């Protein structure tokens, strides 16, 4: 092997291989970086708060002056309207919001400190629309504890509006989760209490959410006679950026809650841009692969006579191809290693900036991008090996 290598490494052009390595490194880095960046930034764009998945839209009927005066339509969705919505091509699933039909108030406080309380309400959506561990998100009749999800904005209003101006300490999500609330429920001649605890914060749903089983049980208990047509619905769609959704909603005169579609569009553009950058990276990788193959062909060409002699004195094509195969795999592996190092370096730079702007950003890992790099490496190396072997076989056959 040593002698074969000594023989066949002649005519290796360092500039060619350096050119290949650089181009391949660049291509690989672009591919891996775009994938990594997409993975890192996706949670921000998709506003994936871990509770409500991003492809959900919340719809309600437009509130007009006539509604306010008690005239016009009821503002709730009828069975027919729901069925029509279900029949649309962009719809994956439809769920309805169910509101509490009785009086709810809540008070909380830490022992020794003044308690404070407020009137409030509950709503629920079907449990499978809520992306929280189901062991935390359930209520069974007879239990004296109910899990609650509140909008993140509530906490922001307190922390950045109220607490700041009153010189009160800011509270974190973790602390809120530790505070136990006492919830009082009145209706149907009953007045009862139950414990509640915040198990999550949602940036997507502007409501105070409890499990569906709790609403069903409590409405039956405290407001058995109320009618329960939904005034808001939650909709899972195939593609939030689909134009026909907006058309449909405008035509029907529905309202959509704030910027859900915007984030959907942002998501779409993020995907599009990452996709384009990744394609460019792939293209560069492809070109570099082409350079490498040309260099190897040239090298084999220059060494053809020697290779032929080796074959004539009994070397098998596999043995002759081996040094070139080891050479290319070595180079590919080096490039993969450098690309991975480069990736983690560049990532630590942009993560530093991103986490200043988005402190909630989680750290993630470079595992999937690295795995993708490894797959690319395996694919390219396999191609290299096959092509080199094929070339040597051609020499064998003349």
């Amino acid at each position: 092997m040593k002698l074969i290598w000594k023989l066949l490494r002649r005519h290796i052009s360092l500039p060619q291989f350096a050119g290949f390595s650089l181009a391949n490194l660049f291509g690989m880095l672009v591919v891996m970086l775009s994938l990594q960046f997409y993975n890192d930034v996706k949670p921000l764009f998709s506003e994936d708060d871990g509770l409500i998945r991003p492809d959900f839209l919340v719809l309600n009927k437009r509130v007009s002056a006539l509604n306010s005066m008690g005239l016009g339509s009821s503002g709730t969705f009828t069975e027919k309207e729901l069925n029509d919505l279900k029949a649309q091509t962009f719809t994956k699933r439809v769920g309805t919001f169910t509101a509490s039909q009785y009086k709810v108030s809540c008070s909380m406080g830490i022992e020794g400190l003044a308690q404070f309380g407020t009137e409030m309400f509950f709503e629920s959506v079907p449990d499978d629309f809520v992306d929280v561990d189901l062991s935390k998100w359930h209520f069974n009749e007879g239990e004296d504890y109910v899990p609650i999800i509140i909008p993140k904005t509530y906490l922001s209003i307190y922390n950045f509006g109220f607490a700041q101006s009153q010189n009160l300490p800011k509270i974190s999500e973790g602390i809120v989760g530790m505070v136990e609330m006492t919830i009082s429920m009145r209706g149907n001649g009953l007045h009862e209490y139950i414990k509640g605890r915040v198990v999550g914060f949602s940036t997507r749903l502007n409501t105070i959410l409890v499990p569906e089983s709790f609403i069903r049980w409590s409405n039956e208990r405290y407001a058995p006679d109320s009618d329960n047509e939904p005034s808001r619905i939650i909709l899972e769609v195939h593609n939030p950026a689909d134009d026909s959704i907006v058309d449909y909603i405008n035509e029907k005169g529905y309202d959509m809650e704030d910027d859900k579609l915007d984030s959907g569009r942002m998501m779409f553009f993020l995907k599009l841009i990452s996709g384009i950058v990744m394609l460019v990276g792939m293209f560069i990788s492809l070109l570099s692969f082409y350079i490498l193959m040309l260099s190897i062909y040239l090298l084999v060409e220059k060494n053809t006579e020697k290779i032929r002699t080796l074959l004539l004195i009994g070397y098998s094509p596999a043995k002759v191809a081996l040094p070139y195969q080891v050479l290319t795999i070595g180079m590919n592996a080096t490039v993969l290693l450098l690309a991975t190092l480069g990736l983690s370096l560049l990532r630590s730079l942009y993560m530093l900036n991103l986490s200043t702007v988005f402190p909630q950003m989680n750290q993630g890992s470079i595992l999937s991008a690295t795995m993708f790099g490894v797959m690319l490496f395996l694919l390219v190396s396999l191609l290299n090996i096959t092509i080199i072997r094929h070339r040597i076989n051609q020499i064998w056959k003349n």
Partner: protein
Amino acid sequence: MNTIHLDNTLPKVFLSKPDLQSDIWRRQVCFEKGNTYLIEAGSGTGKSSLCSFIIGSRQDFEGKILFDGKDTRRLSTKEWSKLRQNNISLLFQELRLFPELTAMENVEIKNSLTHFKSNQEILNWFEALGIADKMTSPVRLMSFGQQQRVAMIRALVQPFDFLLADEPVSHLDEKNSQIMSDIMMEEVRRQGAGVIITSIGKHMALPYNKVFSL
């Protein structure tokens, strides 16, 4: 492998020569293991082509070549590699040494494939052929006659049933020619192999079993 059988073999380039006079082409010829053959030929009569056909590097011939009755056209790449390692050794007329390697390395590159001879045995051959002092010199700096001897050593560091020597002594004087044929025949006898030597005039003085005119 015990026989090499030429069955109506003819290089395709000779198809246009109807009046070909030859003991080899378009005949039934059988080379047997253990025998020594001389093929005498003029230039351009297809002597090196015959070697290429037998070693499998060229297929541009009519008729058949059979190894122990097996058509060589049916041999796979793997089988050819094995044959070239274990059954047929060819001393090329153009030597086909690697100029950038030393004399010793040129022999080692073959011996590392077959592991057939010890370093000492190879060294003894270098000494006997009078080129021991050139062992570590790049082979390109040696004269053709010296290179011929290196090529001979390389041809001998493998097991073989047949040794093909294409004009092995064209550039050697009588004395060295004699030493070379002694060494060659000693190894051939040790292995019980057959020898096919080609020559365009000058040839090793050996007890040939048969002499062909190409």
